[in-house]
């Protein structure tokens, strides 16, 4: 901050500080120092006054001392030599009869933060640990933590550490908590304070004496303690029980977290703890501080992942107020979607309908998406609301509605007719890329039923020259071709124009390639085109996409409860911050990444050790979710990417689909859809993200790449049949690419030869994997993980 006349003022202050008349006048001296501090707080560089201020330090006036210390601590690092002068005064103060002066001197001695001065500080600090006054001990204890932070490489004397452990039994609760804090920092490399039974019980018994902050810290340290017996565990729990209802939200949250970690083996206790904490959590969600409200909402979302019924009857508490900030509204909307049940669906939909016209576009889009996802499991009232919104003719609403409709009909094709009748009168213009993509997709799929489809397409084709988004153009190509199949007479001419433009003038390679592909496809004859582009509605009803998530086990999220992570999750799913501010950087890794060794490629692993520590530097993660249609799009797009096909020696899992899904989730593989267990041919769709963590050549590989996989039962002629049924459209193409890719062929031979060669019978599954970029090793590693899980599931 520029401050005019700064230098002049500093000079004037220097004169004043060294003026003997002022120095003798108590009051004027202090006022001058006041002015120095004031300037300092405004950002003026007053470090030039350091030596004058050092002199001002030697005074009996405690206020003046305090002020000078504030100054010295701010500028000590600029003047290390001069700071040496202060040490003497400070050490003298450390033996002052007034405990206030002693603690002040001790605190500021450590706050100078000069590594060179540490040797002078240690002696008074050691003395301070034994001081009579609690306030000196408080400061001395934390002083050791500061010294450790200054000199991270030198070991703190073991005697001091022992002394600190001893002070955990200090009569003053603040000294006790400060000891914990200091030991946590000093022993960070050893994993913090060692909590044994006597210490844990001592801390628990004195919990009530601490202030709120202390309690919250003691509770978090206690998480490392594991009770020896069930009796001890329940004693601890009953001691902690009242704290679950504390009106200090931080304490309630810390207690709940401790409960969850202590009772990880006793799910029933966890559930009842959640029920007890529900009241305070709901109260926090209605608190007057909006930040607290937001944090509580994010944590409620976590809870609902395991206990969807927990808040059921309280859904009205999550209604949005008009003046609430968008980030709160968006997380409330997400909570509301989770709380929908048969009884309240109508009321909630009415409420959500009101939010669709919110001033904030992101909030209204979130509400529209919410209605869409309710529509997947509940009746078509949702559809009425969505189509009604189209009539508002608000650009952002229309775009969001179209995207939602696209997602909805993909999952529930029975809504097709209603969507068609809504689109029948379409005459708007859309600017939004996403929205236009969705519109084109709908036009393509329902081209035969929408009388106006060719005319809307024509508008798009006329404007294709000014179109910037490649995404819209590829969508346009597909849609035009699909409409051409059903209504050739109206579409032929404009399709010719579009193909010509895309092939001859288009600069984007993907669009051009796609246009060329279609052009050649058309040469093959209309029947082939039909076979490729119109293989029914893409969503296979028998697949039964996983609509509602099954409740997760509490342990899945217990470790991130009461940390910053739920808040960051909330922010990312609410989508209100752009990717640049939303780095995937987290301070704690909450789930142990699943890793595997690339050399252990035998599909039958001897030991299905699912939580093996990182050894190969590759791990899988579920960093972002994929919708079914995205999966399909990517599957088709990754034609050119890495491709691997393998036979795995493993029978079709007989366990329930849900348990298989949970098992796969544990190793961070997401299941998108699968058939019922006894239905033939059995198939399953999976995806995951692979990321390289420690590999030396990580700079050459992208940090995070998506892997898509399809698992088919390979029994008998099932494979061939399925191949034709499912991805017929570009089957030939892919077969070619496999043969061209020399490695692929070899590897496949290796794998099927080694494992399933002689026995191609019932016990085989075919796994097809695709990855956009990346190398074969990632795919083979993924495969080994998958095989392990499948085998483990079978043997279990």
């Amino acid at each position: 901050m520029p401050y005019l006349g700064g230098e002049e003022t500093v000079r004037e202050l220097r004169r004043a500080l060294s003026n003997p008349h002022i120095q003798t006048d108590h009051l004027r001296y202090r006022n001058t120092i006041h002015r120095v501090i004031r300037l300092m707080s405004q950002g003026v560089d007053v470090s030039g006054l350091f030596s004058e201020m050092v002199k001002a330090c030697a005074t009996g006036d405690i206020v003046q001392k305090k002020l000078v210390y504030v100054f010295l601590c701010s500028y000590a690092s600029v003047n290390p030599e001069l700071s040496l002068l202060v040490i003497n005064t400070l050490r003298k103060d450390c033996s002052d009869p007034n405990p206030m002066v002693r603690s002040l001197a001790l605190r500021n001695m450590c706050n100078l933060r000069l590594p060179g001065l540490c040797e002078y500080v240690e002696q008074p600090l050691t003395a301070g640990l034994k001081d009579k006054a609690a306030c000196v001990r408080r400061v001395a204890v934390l002083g050791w933590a500061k010294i450790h932070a200054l000199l991270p490489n030198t070991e703190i004397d073991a005697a001091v550490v022992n002394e600190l452990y001893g002070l955990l039994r200090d009569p003053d609760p603040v000294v006790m908590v400060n000891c914990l804090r200091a030991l946590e920092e000093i022993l960070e490399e050893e994993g913090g304070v060692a909590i044994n039974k006597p210490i844990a019980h001592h801390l628990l018994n004195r919990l009530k004496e601490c202030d709120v902050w202390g309690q919250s810290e003691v509770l978090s340290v206690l998480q490392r303690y594991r009770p020896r017996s069930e009796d001890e565990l329940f004693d601890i729990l009953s001691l902690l029980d009242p704290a679950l209802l504390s009106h200090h939200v931080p304490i309630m949250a810390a207690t709940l977290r401790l409960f969850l970690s202590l009772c990880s083996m006793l799910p029933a206790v966890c559930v009842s703890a959640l029920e007890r904490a529900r009241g305070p959590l709901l109260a926090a969600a209605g608190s007057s501080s909006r930040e607290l409200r937001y944090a509580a909402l994010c944590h409620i979302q976590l809870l609902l992942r395991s206990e969807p019924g927990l808040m059921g009857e309280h859904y009205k508490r999550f209604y949005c107020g008009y003046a609430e900030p968008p980030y709160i509204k968006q997380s409330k909307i997400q909570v509301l979607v989770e709380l929908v049940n048969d009884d309240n669906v109508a009321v909630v939909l009415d409420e959500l309908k009101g939010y669709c016209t919110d001033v904030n576009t992101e909030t209204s889009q979130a509400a529209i998406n919410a209605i869409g996802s309710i529509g997947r499991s509940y009746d078509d009232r949702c559809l009425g609301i969505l189509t009604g919104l189209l009539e508002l003719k608000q650009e952002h609403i229309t775009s969001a509605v179209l995207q939602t409709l696209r997602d909805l009909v993909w999952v529930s094709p029975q809504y097709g007719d209603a969507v068609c009748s809504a689109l029948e009168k379409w005459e708007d213009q859309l600017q939004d890329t996403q929205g236009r993509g969705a519109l084109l997709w709908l036009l393509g799929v329902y081209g035969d039923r929408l009388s106006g489809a060719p005319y809307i397409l024509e508008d798009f084709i006329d404007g294709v020259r000014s179109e910037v988004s490649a995404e819209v153009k590829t969508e346009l190509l597909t849609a035009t071709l699909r409409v051409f199949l059903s209504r050739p007479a109206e579409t032929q001419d404009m399709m010719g124009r579009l193909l010509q433009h895309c092939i001859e003038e288009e600069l984007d390679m993907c669009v051009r390639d796609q246009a060329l592909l279609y052009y050649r496809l058309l040469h093959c004859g209309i029947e082939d085109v039909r076979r490729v582009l119109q293989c029914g509605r893409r969503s296979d009803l028998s697949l039964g996409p996983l609509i509602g998530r099954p409740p997760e086990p509490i342990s899945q999220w217990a470790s991130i409860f009461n940390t910053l992570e739920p808040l960051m999750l909330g922010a990312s799913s609410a989508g209100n911050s752009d990717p640049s501010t939303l780095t995937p950087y987290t301070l704690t890794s909450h789930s142990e990444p699943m890793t595997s060794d690339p050399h252990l490629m035998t599909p039958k692993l001897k030991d299905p050790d699912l939580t093996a520590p990182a050894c190969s530097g590759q791990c899988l993660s579920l960093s972002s979710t994929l919708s079914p249609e995205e999966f399909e799009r990517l599957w088709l797009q990754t034609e050119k990417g890495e491709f691997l096909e393998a036979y795995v020696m493993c029978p079709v899992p007989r366990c329930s689909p849900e348990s298989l899904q949970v098992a796969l989730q544990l190793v961070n593989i997401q299941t998108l859809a699968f058939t019922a267990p006894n239905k033939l041919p059995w198939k399953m769709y999976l995806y995951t993200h692979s990321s390289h963590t420690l590999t030396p050549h990580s700079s050459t590989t992208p940090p995070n790449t998506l892997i898509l996989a399809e698992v088919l039962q390979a029994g008998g002629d099932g494979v061939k049949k399925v191949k034709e049924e499912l991805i017929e459209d570009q089957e030939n193409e892919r077969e070619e690419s496999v043969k061209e890719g020399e490695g692929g062929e070899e590897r496949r031979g290796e794998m099927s030869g080694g494992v399933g060669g002689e026995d191609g019978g019932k016990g085989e599954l075919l796994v097809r994997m695709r990855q956009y970029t990346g190398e074969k090793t990632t795919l083979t590693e993924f495969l080994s993980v998958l095989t392990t899980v499948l085998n483990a599931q079978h043997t279990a």
Partner: protein
Amino acid sequence: MIHSLFLVNPSGDIFLEKHWKSVVSRSVCDYFLEAREKALDPEDVPPVISTPHHYLISIYRDKLFFLSVIQTEVPPLFVIEFLHRVAEMIQDYFGECSETVIKDNVVMVYELLEEMLDNGFPLATESNVLKEMIRPPTILRSVVNTLTGSSNVGDKLPTGQLSTIPWRRAGVKYTNNEAYFDVVEEIDAILDRTGTTVFAEIQGVVEACVKLSGMPDLTLSFMNPRLLDDVSFHPCVRYKRWESERVLSFIPPDGNFTLMTYHVNAQNLVAIPVYVKHSINFFESGSGGRLDLTVGPKQTMGKTVEGVLVTVHMPKTVLSVSLNATQGSYTYDNATKVLVWDIGKLNPQKLPNLRGSLSLQTGAPKPEENPSLNIDLKIQQLAISGLKVNRLDMFGEKYKPFKGVKYITKAGKFQVRM
């Protein structure tokens, strides 16, 4: 834990910084300021922002951002609560929490922050402990200080640390022994356009001001304790007795504190004290509209409704209003599009009414969204849930204290949709 604190005003100037560990450059705030730029309203800035090396946790309060820089994993609720405590402390010391007040008392704020945290850990945050170390400014004292040269800093140890009960000082002495309890209830409600209650709950709090000598042991009982859901107490309350007998038994802290907070959820129990008759319509031609509002008392249990204030968030296209109020006065802020109608006391015989015309931006389409109104009100001597204190008994001391209970009902987030 808490590395640094920055105070930022809504226009994005950092006017105070305090570092408890090493100095963090101001440039870390750029991530926050960027988010601030993007948000339309200062309230819309998300409370947690992650940067490559730090987390920034901020609260927005009294038109100021309190921005803390965090370097290690911490419970977010803890930090948020602490920041609120800082704001409350400034409010407590200087009467208000605003940029000018902080700038005027910058040295004292520095001292306070120094005492509240050491090495990033909360040290002394209790108001009465802090006030013993740093005395709050009063006009009289600052005059006396300038004349005599005495200080605002206490030079004796806070005595609170020596008592066996952490929340109470030892050896308290008063000449007038008194205990006052305020039962404050806030109604949070959403009413839809027909006047039916969409959602309603009461958030209640019992604030106490206890100035009793020695170590008194108090017992407070209610006429109808079963009314309460979700109670939470000050740590001094013996929870076991509440569970078995539904009475509050406690050794109180000295001075002001919050004894308990509670909720009343059951919707049929929540009385709605006022009703609003409203109509707002915009002409199809798009150039204007009409507004008509009437407020009247509904279930007030015979008490008068005071301090009624109606706030209407108008659609963005409303340019100006020309209205006529039969009672009170109204203002319309064109920048924020907020219409505020200050009614005052409700008179059941003559209901206040506000009507007139609205003029819209020319050419703008008819607004899609109907505005909503927020109502602020106050009812003295009534706890709207019907909660009543039965009696207060004191044990452990000989003297006879002076006791008093006051009830007040306020509107919390009270919203009517139009």
